[in-house]
């Protein structure tokens, strides 16, 4: 659906060059909700603006729905943009126009008839739950309502892709949740592929199925959300994951372990059904091991569960080896960690 191939982007302003992207490649498949996370200045906005060619790459390929954008004329690009909706952190609604007129704007630009426009706008306002606000103006709406209008407007031309640049960053947690629910609904009911930019890992956790972590113009890690949350490899990804999932042992527990002179623990990571299977029971009953739980954390990600256990395991070496074998068969990741 969206393919970026070895993209470099250099901004030139007043003879100062800023390299925003250094060889970024990624692929977003149809139906994905693809999250891009990174700190300020990482190049996230630049990346998402390439997809609808608001920004042109200095080098590299942008392919959307099988079309290489560099080959397209200005006129063709405008048509392609109508297939790509976009919503913004600050909503960017026309203050001088009513909610109805704002949502109708893409249809007006495409010179659609009055009747068709009316039907479509009415349907969209109902979809985002703002039917009663058709004749209000943006300054009469709350932030969350404005973003709903933004979403309705972005959907007006029946796009296949929706780009969201920090769409919830100006909203409080509750409103954020309702907008994220709406985005999920957009993805489910209309089958629209979503690419969203954020600096909050909780946003990724709640809606995305894939994630790319960006730092200084590069994608340092990408994959399925479960994988990246389960075992982030890069330090920055770990920091992001830590903001929503406790994968490390808290300091006070570490202190207690030190007192008891415990140095090695076994860390188990279980995803989905495994997380709720009685793995511990088996370790104790089947392999006669002495298992005590030092620390555990369970997190809901994308309707499945990610569980992390830190265990102190005592027992015969042969029993332990048999237990490791069992864990491998069960697809449970385990590792010895020193504290």
């Amino acid at each position, binding site marked *: 659906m969206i393919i970026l191939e070895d993209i470099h982007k250099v901004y030139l302003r007043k003879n100062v060059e800023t390299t925003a992207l250094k060889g970024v490649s990624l692929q977003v498949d149809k139906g994905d909700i693809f999250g891009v996370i990174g700190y300020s200045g990482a190049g996230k906005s630049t990346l998402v603006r390439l997809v*609808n060619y*608001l920004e042109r790459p200095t080098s590299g390929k942008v392919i959307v729905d099988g079309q290489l954008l560099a080959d397209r004329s200005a006129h063709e*690009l*405008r*048509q*392609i*943009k*109508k297939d*790509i*909706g*976009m919503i*913004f952190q*600050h909503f*960017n*609604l*026309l*203050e*001088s*126009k009513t909610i109805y007129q704002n949502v109708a*704007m*893409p249809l*007006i*630009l495409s010179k659609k008839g009055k009747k068709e426009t009316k039907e479509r706008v009415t349907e969209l306002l109902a979809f985002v739950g703002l039917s009663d606000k058709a004749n209000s*103006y943006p*300054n009469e709406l709350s932030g969350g309502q404005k973003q709903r209008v933004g979403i309705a407007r972005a959907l007006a*031309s029946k796009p296949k892709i929706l*780009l969201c640049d920090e769409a919830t960053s100006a909203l409080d947690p509750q409103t954020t949740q309702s907008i994220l629910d709406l985005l999920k609904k957009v993805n489910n009911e209309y089958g629209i592929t979503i690419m969203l930019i954020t600096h909050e890992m909780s946003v990724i956790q709640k809606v995305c199925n894939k994630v790319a972590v960006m730092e200084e113009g590069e994608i340092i890690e990408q994959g399925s959300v479960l994988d990246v949350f389960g075992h982030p490899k890069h330090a920055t990804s770990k920091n992001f994951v830590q903001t929503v999932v406790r994968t490390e042992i808290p300091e006070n527990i570490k202190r207690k372990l030190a007192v008891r002179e415990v140095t090695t623990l076994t860390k188990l990571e279980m995803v989905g059904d495994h997380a709720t299977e009685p793995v511990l029971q088996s370790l104790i009953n089947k392999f006669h091991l002495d298992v005590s739980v030092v620390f555990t954390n369970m997190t809901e990600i994308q309707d499945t569960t990610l569980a992390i256990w830190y265990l102190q395991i005592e027992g015969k070496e042969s029993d332990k080896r048999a237990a490791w074998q069992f864990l491998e068969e069960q697809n449970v990741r385990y590792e010895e960690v020193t504290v």
Partner: protein
Amino acid sequence: MFDTNITLNQFVEAIGESFYMVGMSLLIGTIFGAIFGILIVVTRPGGIIPFPIVYMILNPIINTIRSVPFIILIVALIPFTRSIVGTSIGNNAAIVPLIIFITPFIARLVENSLLEVGPGIIEAAESMGATPFQVIWHFILPEAFASLILSLTTATISLIGASAMAGVVGAGGVGNIAIVYGYQRFDSFAMFSTVVILIIIVQVIQSTGNKLARMIRRN
């Protein structure tokens, strides 16, 4: 009651002439000023249709004309005025320098108003696949409308001030009454009335402009 040589009729006629001069030059000046103002916004580097040459030519021309005081502009333009309206005196002859005076002023005001429209609005427009014309027509102009009304109010008041100097080329208007009767014939009633009339007109125009702008902004 007052020691004056001026009749009410003369006043009414002068006000009519002022309105004629201001109205005509405002109309034509607004058309050209808006065109130049829009051009200078869209062709600037980073604008929606970057065209550096147009920008680099228009910008200094606007600055140059704006730096010439109106009284000098009137005199300097006499040959030009004659070639256009066939005479260098009278109301119509005053309109030519008034237009030349007000057009760059309006262009600047329009430029400022249009630049107030945030880059976010233009980004949204472009993300919808709007053509450059659509960006201007459906996004920038409606968003800048209230501000444009205030700009035109300012321009109108400026024109009223300038038109009072039109007496130099034998045009009429309230300014002319102030000079011919008030200054040259020491008729302080004429002078005083002119000032009062100008104050009232300016007040009415300013508050009308403010009210309109507020109505458009709905608050």
